[in-house]
């Protein structure tokens, strides 16, 4: 079973994503900001990450850039309410594999993660 990490500053969003993803994947870590995400990634080496953008301490865009710099093969899917075109392009240009805009359907999240491993 593939291992995932959920990064979001909102506890309710981490719970919802865990409820959705744990039907098919093993969620090995959660983080509530970008800095914690990098630390947890190094510790658990997950197969995929869902990454929020608007977070305190270090935002998700900075964390994406940091993770891709250190782990170029990291599978990172952005999950954010701030889905402006400029931000979507910035994320994809910096190595994000997909960009899910909140509010989302469970199927959209599962499809994005499934596609990483096809």
């Amino acid at each position: 079973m593939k291992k995932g990490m959920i990064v979001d500053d909102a506890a309710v969003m981490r719970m919802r994503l865990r409820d959705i993803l744990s039907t098919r994947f093993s969620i090995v870590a959660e983080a509530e900001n970008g800095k914690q995400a990098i630390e947890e990634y190094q510790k658990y080496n997950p197969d995929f990450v869902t990454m929020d953008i608007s977070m305190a301490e270090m935002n998700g865009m900075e964390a994406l850039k940091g993770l891709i710099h250190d782990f170029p093969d990291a599978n990172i899917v952005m999950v954010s309410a701030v889905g402006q075109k400029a931000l979507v392009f910035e994320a994809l240009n910096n190595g994000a594999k997909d960009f899910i805009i909140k509010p989302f359907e469970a199927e959209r999240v599962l499809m994005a993660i499934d596609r990483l491993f096809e």
Partner: protein
Amino acid sequence: MKAEYANPFIQAAVKTFKKELDVQLNRNSLVVKNSPLPSKELSIIIGVTGAVRGQVVYSMDDNVAMSVAKTMIPGRLPVELKKLKNSAVSELANIITGQASIILAGDNSKIDITPPAVFGGAAAVIDFLSLQTISLSFLSEIGSFEVNIALTEENV
């Protein structure tokens, strides 16, 4: 303060309530006031920077916040929901602001939003800056909801 800032928030709030909560949000009133001071028990402040900047203050009563939490994370015990209530309303406000920012940013601009800050209860006293504000109020089956928009363009 441009009146056209109201529409993206109206669209975003109605869409988010429908998608996240399956609740129909209906417009009640739109007034212009001198600060984003909220009128209900619990409020969420989100800062906006970039092509437009300022703040948006969402406000609702505590029972509405409990209904939001109950719907966003179903199957949890009441004691757990009480703990997660602020997180639920923060996320709801974050999604509405994010959706509105997509419309406001258009194809070429960039707008950043800050993580939400929640405050409420009798002890909460916050001085809001004097900023021209559009205050939207909505009605729904779970109660009323207020959005105070105090935004200006970057170069103003």
